């Protein structure tokens, strides 16, 4: 799954050492912080944690890393939280898990969270029945990458509407034989849902509204039809998109074989690498939208939450506030290249000097939309994955796919 990408990496010796049992101190609280593996020098996070320990005498924090696989992390948390385990106090959670964990009563209500300081999208995703159960840590959202050089060469502007994208892609393809127009992630997996929702949301559509399923709507039909048309009618997207995940699509674009790419922010650094064939030729824009709608990137990212069974609720909450605070998010953003979830940091001169690319992302994140916020998200997603896949592989009409998914999701929500 895409949202774990930022956490994939090798575990350094320092982090391993940090996993060892600490020397127990009498009357002292030891917080256990569970998170996925970090890519980069684990020392930066550890240094922040040391700082927290110094500010809270008697408190020790132990990091424990989980496997990189998102499914495995989800299982680990669910099995342990369901059993009421207090073996960990603070946990890093994927944005799509919060509603399920919150409804199950596994997370502490973080009542005092300064909601306004974070982007709206992540706040919506961590809120369950009007209370916030996790603090946004890092944020991710879909972007449109384009070949600056090719658009300039043919006098084209970055597209505002999906129709513009089709027209521009066709114009470039007509004059550059062998080039694909637009590549994205169309394999049947979580990434396909992220891609498809960007079309639906940017046409004013939705999956759920006020607890009801509103999938089978004219807006969604038009949006999904465009997605299928990219492949079958306009042929700006190759048929092989039905096997594409993030990396294969980035490779196609990175080898100079496509004019447009939909991907997450992580791709920027790789495309801008001096050894990349498209180095210096890549532009970034918000994803297009439909007339009357607005650009709506799908949101990913990680949040920090407190285990409701933790014996150190207060201090664990302080730790979450500390790590999701401005100073910590800034230091982590500089060290690991993650995108902070706090709005104010996008005006921070020092951070922007270190990570100039962040400056272009604020607008995208401000408009980014979460996937449907429901405790049944994983089951809902499995339905969407298969029906969206059927629509773009031409097996079902968009109308039939949406009607089918609508009925299946209603069943799930009624039963759940």
């Amino acid at each position, binding site marked *: 799954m895409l949202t774990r990408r930022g956490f994939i990496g090798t575990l350094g010796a320092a982090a391993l050492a940090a996993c060892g049992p600490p020397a127990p101190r009498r009357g002292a609280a030891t917080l256990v912080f569970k998170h996925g593996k970090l890519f980069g020098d684990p020392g930066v996070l550890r240094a922040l944690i040391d700082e927290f320990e110094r500010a809270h005498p008697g408190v020790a924090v132990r990091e424990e890393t989980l496997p990189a696989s998102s*499914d495995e992390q*989800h*299982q680990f948390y*669910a*099995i342990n939280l*369901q059993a009421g385990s207090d073996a960990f106090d603070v946990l890093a959670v994927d944005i799509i898990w919060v509603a*399920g*964990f919150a*409804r*199950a*009563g596994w997370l502490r209500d973080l009542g005092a969270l300064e909601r306004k300081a974070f982007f709206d999208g992540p706040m919506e995703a961590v809120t369950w029945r009007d209370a916030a159960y996790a603090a946004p840590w890092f944020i991710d959202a879909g972007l449109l990458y384009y070949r600056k050089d090719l658009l300039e060469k043919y006098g084209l502007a970055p597209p505002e509407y999906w129709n513009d994208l089709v027209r521009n892609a066709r114009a470039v393809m007509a004059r550059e034989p062998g080039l694909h127009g637009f590549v994205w992630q*169309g*394999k*049947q*997996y979580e990434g396909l849902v992220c891609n498809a929702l960007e079309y639906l949301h940017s046409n004013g559509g939705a999956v759920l509204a006020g607890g009801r399923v509103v999938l089978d709507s004219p807006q969604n039909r038009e949006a999904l039809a465009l997605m299928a048309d990219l492949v079958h009618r306009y042929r700006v997207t*190759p*048929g*092989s*998109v*039905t*096997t594409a995940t993030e990396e*294969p699509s980035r490779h*196609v674009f990175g080898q100079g074989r496509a004019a447009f790419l939909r991907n997450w922010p992580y791709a920027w650094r790789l495309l801008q690498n001096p050894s990349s064939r498209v180095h210096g030729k890549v532009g970034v824009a918000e994803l297009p939208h439909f007339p009357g709608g607005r650009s709506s990137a799908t949101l990913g990212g990680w949040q920090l939450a407190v285990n409701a069974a933790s014996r150190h609720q207060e201090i664990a909450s302080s730790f979450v506030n500390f790590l999701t605070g401005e100073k910590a998010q800034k230091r982590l953003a500089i060290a690991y290249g993650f995108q902070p979830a706090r709005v104010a940091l996008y005006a921070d001169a020092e951070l922007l000097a270190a990570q100039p690319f962040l400056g272009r992302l604020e607008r995208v994140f401000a408009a980014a939309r979460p996937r449907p916020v429901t*405790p*049944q998200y*994983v*089951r809902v997603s*499995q339905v969407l*994955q*298969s*029906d969206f*896949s*059927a629509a*773009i*592989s031409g*097996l*079902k009409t968009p109308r039939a796919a949406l009607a089918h998914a609508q009925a299946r999701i209603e069943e799930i929500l009624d039963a*759940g």
Partner: protein
Amino acid sequence: MQAERERPWRYLAPAAFLLAIVTAYPLAHVAWLSLERRSLLDPGPPRFTGLDNYLRLAADERFWNALGNTLYFVGASVALELVLGLAFALAVQRPFRGRAALYGVILLPWAVPTAVSARMWEWMYEAEIGVLNYLLGTQVNWLGSPAWALNAAILMDVWKSTPFVALLLVAALQGIPRELYHAAAIDGASRWTVLRRITLPLLAPVILVALIFRTIDAFRVFDSIYVLTGGGPANSTETLSIYAYKVLFQSLEFGYGSALAVSVFVLVALTAGVYVFLLRKIVQ
């Protein structure tokens, strides 16, 4: 006397105990779970719901789709593996230089871990830069089109598992007494008659054993398809094991997922039962 009669039980006890712990108990537990409404993410304790999960299964189109995919996969892959394996075994029946080396080479696909070879095939199947389309001069979207994807997975399974069948049959062929062939030659039997009247009947028990192994494995197929397609496009490669995995380990519905797992078990057990029955008849 009494002590002698007790002896077999004492020797069997450790094995029986071990089997009970590692096989019978988990199986019974899964069967029990399948009668409950139990999901990790559901608030509240699990409820006993009798056969509800099985009724849901019967009305679940995704289950029937997965069952259809599984049966197609089993039928096609096992049949191809048997025919190709038999053909190979017959072809290398007579000794020739390099036969031992050939055995080694032929075993390679079987020796590579499935997840690794699946990754390899994923690259070969790649629609644009994959070697398969390059060699065939085609532009087939092997893993991305509903018409091809399951067949592509079958082809990989045949590549991987034919050596297993072939080697079993090679060994069995060498066990057939030469005298029978000499006698047939003296009687002037044609090669076809020899194959039909001598080779195949004497191979039958081993063919059945190979079929049991391959059918059971094919029913449970998971890792190769999970790597190749993840069940897509549009669930066209979703087998029962893939569906059960998604229900058990992604949506964490232990009750319903257990019902799916039990259904796989029942199907495999029935198939194995039929084979064992046939095997007994043949041996008798």
